[in-house]
């Protein structure tokens, strides 16, 4: 923010990402459309962030993401109040804070956008966690709407042929489910086109993230957290493709002009796990004050991370296999491979892990990953204990001390 009263600092202005405005517009319009679905006769489906949204887009269903909503709740610092609502209803405080805050919102109609549009049906893919299945069961009972579960087996050491067959079978069950809900048939040509756009969007998103490998990095993980929304929400649309092309071009320009996001980038760091939504600005400034830049992260790259598994000519079937392989649906051994690649690609000096109380599949095992990174790759690591939405699990003084101490190690 520029200091009111004085003119805007031109250096700061230069570093701002211009596409932000466009992004805000798209998201605002998207939520307006979603909230007005009742008037336009379009169906609304709630879907988990890792779920295959493409068939919904092809069927003209408006996808709504409670997790994105959870992120907004967190970012607007309304998490505690809404989580407490759910706790009053008997949901233990130990449950994922996306689920708690969203349940709180369903009941009160509160939150940053006055609650989500009610779903006509629910699509839950458990490739991110078992939590979403329980959460969607709750939603299905509450709104009295049907639930489709796409069950994507976890890969410990391999993804056997039977698992592959199982997820492929389910893609067709999914489409049948949609056809029943919408009262019309899937247009497979349209589906093909949506698949193509999805892949294009994912590639562009990956290109945006790759720009962080440049020194100085034209954007940070904190920017990626913000620009992620479309790849989750509108993947498979032309709009997302156009937007990410614009963003990628902007990143290229910044690289050409030598604009880095952190003024004196000296230390390059990798972030692991979800953002701490209510503290992104604080954390970003905290690291920047140490000339440290979070140049990449495992979270926002999880979507495009499955690109190698997707076959554009057989989008539907390959998609189901690909989405089963997302970063947190695989074992620690496979995760460490990804970490190793990212540490190398972004040429980072350290790893910052958010141990996220809400998210067990992402966080349990981090201590082992941390040890592997330190022993094998010999880079320092920092674990921050917090929660993505529930501020009660964030201790500013403790986190500040830990960051300072970690930066001292890096600097020495």
């Amino acid at each position, binding site marked *: 923010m520029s200091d009111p009263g004085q003119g805007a600092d031109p250096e700061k202005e230069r570093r701002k990402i211009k596409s932000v405005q466009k992004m805000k517009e798209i998201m605002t319009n998207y939520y307006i459309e979603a909230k007005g679905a009742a008037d336009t006769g379009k169906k609304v489906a709630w879907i988990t962030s890792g779920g295959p949204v493409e068939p919904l887009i092809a069927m003209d269903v408006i996808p709504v993401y409670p997790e994105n909503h959870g992120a907004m709740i967190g970012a607007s610092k309304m998490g505690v109040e809404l989580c407490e609502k759910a706790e009053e*209803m*008997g*949901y*233990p405080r*130990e*449950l*994922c804070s996306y*689920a708690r805050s969203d349940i709180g919102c369903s009941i009160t109609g509160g939150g940053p956008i006055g609650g989500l549009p009610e779903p006509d049906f629910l699509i839950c893919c*458990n490739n991110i*966690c*078992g*939590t979403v*299945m*329980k*959460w969607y*069961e*709750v939603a*299905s*009972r509450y709104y009295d709407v049907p*639930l489709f*579960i796409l*069950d994507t*087996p*976890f890969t*410990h*050491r391999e993804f*056997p042929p*039977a*698992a592959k*067959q*199982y997820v492929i*079978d*389910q893609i067709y*069950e999914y489409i049948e489910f949609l056809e029943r809900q919408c009262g019309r048939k899937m247009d497979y040509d349209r589906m093909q086109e949506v698949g193509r756009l999805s892949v294009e969007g994912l590639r562009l998103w990956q290109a945006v993230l790759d720009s962080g490998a440049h020194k100085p990095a034209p954007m940070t993980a904190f920017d990626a957290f913000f620009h992620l929304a479309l790849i989750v929400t509108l993947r498979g649309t032309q709009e997302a493709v156009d937007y990410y092309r614009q963003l990628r071009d902007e990143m290229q320009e910044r690289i050409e002009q030598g604009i880095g996001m952190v003024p004196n980038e000296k230390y390059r760091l990798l972030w692991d796990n979800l953002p701490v939504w209510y503290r992104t600005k604080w954390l970003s400034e905290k690291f920047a004050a140490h000339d440290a830049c979070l140049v990449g992260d495992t979270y926002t790259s999880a979507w495009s991370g499955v690109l190698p598994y997707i076959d554009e000519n057989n989008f539907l079937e390959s998609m189901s296999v690909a989405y089963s392989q997302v970063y947190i649906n695989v*074992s*620690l*051994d496979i995760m460490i491979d990804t970490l190793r690649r990212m540490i190398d690609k972004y040429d980072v000096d350290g790893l910052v892990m958010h*141990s996220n*109380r809400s998210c*067990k*599949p992402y*966080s*349990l*095992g*981090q*201590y*082992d990953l941390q040890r592997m990174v330190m022993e094998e790759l010999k880079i320092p690591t920092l674990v921050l*204990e917090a929660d993505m939405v529930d501020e009660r699990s964030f201790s500013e003084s403790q986190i500040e001390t830990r960051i300072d101490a970690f930066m001292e190690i890096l600097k020495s």
Partner: protein
Amino acid sequence: MDTLENLRAVAQDPYGYARNIQATESKPILGYFCSYTPEEIITAAGAIPFRLFGTREDISRADAHLQSYCCSLVRGGLEDALTGRLNFLKGAVFPHTCDSIQRLSDIWRLNAGMALHFDAVLPVKLTTESARNYMIAVLNDFRSELEQGLGVTISDEALYKANHTCNRIRELLGHIYAFRSQNPSQLKGSDIYYIMKAAMVMDREVLVEQLAHLWADLREKGGEAPPTDRKRVLLSGGICTLPDIYTLIEDAGGEVVWDDLCTGTRYFEGEVRETGDPVEAIAERYLSRMVCPAKHKGMSVRGEHLSRLVREQQIGGVIFLFLKFCEPHGFDYPYLKACMDRAGVPTLLLEVEEQLPAEGQLRTRFETFIDMLE
């Protein structure tokens, strides 16, 4: 030693029992955490499925691998593995259940240093044909992996036999439960707990004999005892590793006569068909038996099931019992409680941390609760 006393002794020192087996027999012992572990296949392979309940000792090693926010079963299980208290295990089996167990499997495989490690990634939804096919395939894969790991062949005959043994065990446990429900003064709640615990760790071939004896003994005693005026209580939730609470509830004027626990009725519910393909038969039991909350079988099955149990067993009050940080059970709790509220059945929630709350405090909570019951 009479049978009951023997089972009690096993339950009180399961590790001692296992070490003894290891010293005197060649049967390999495989650890497991969840009631979706196909014990029949393990038994058919000539091994002993040994359920792990975590530890009540202090945690010294597991904290280096697990954050503060995982349940005590996962933490305690890992602790015992890392400290060598589970050295009698040849390996462990992890069926897919909750997010925490899923990660525990990785951490265990990388750190526990056991010879064998199996993941049986069963389906989570149990309602479709494709899930059924997948379940059968996973169980068949598990059968081959087990053959390889233990260097044995698991014949269909061995599977039929194991299916039969396990069916017989379930049937006997069912009889014993029903007996207790009708004659609570003849068999203590804590004894039911010990019987169940022993059943999940003992050599199944030996167990089936012992249960048959026990059942014969009980039948002889018969229902001569006068009915007690204790209030009939049902426990609902995840695992129960706490014998003390049965006694505390009894002291407070209640009587645990039934449960919906995976270390209780969910363990012995349902039967494996003894004809046709033996692996398919195992899968079918999993698909038809009452679900645990980490699996999906429709929106209302658990609530309906609990309501039915309450009616059938003439339950006066329900105590929900699950481990702190347990997501599957935590999410179901408000819904199950609402079902009980609608039926006018009082409930009490006990979220268990590593240790039970102080005895005095628990006693007061139970007394207040039981006083409320009709």
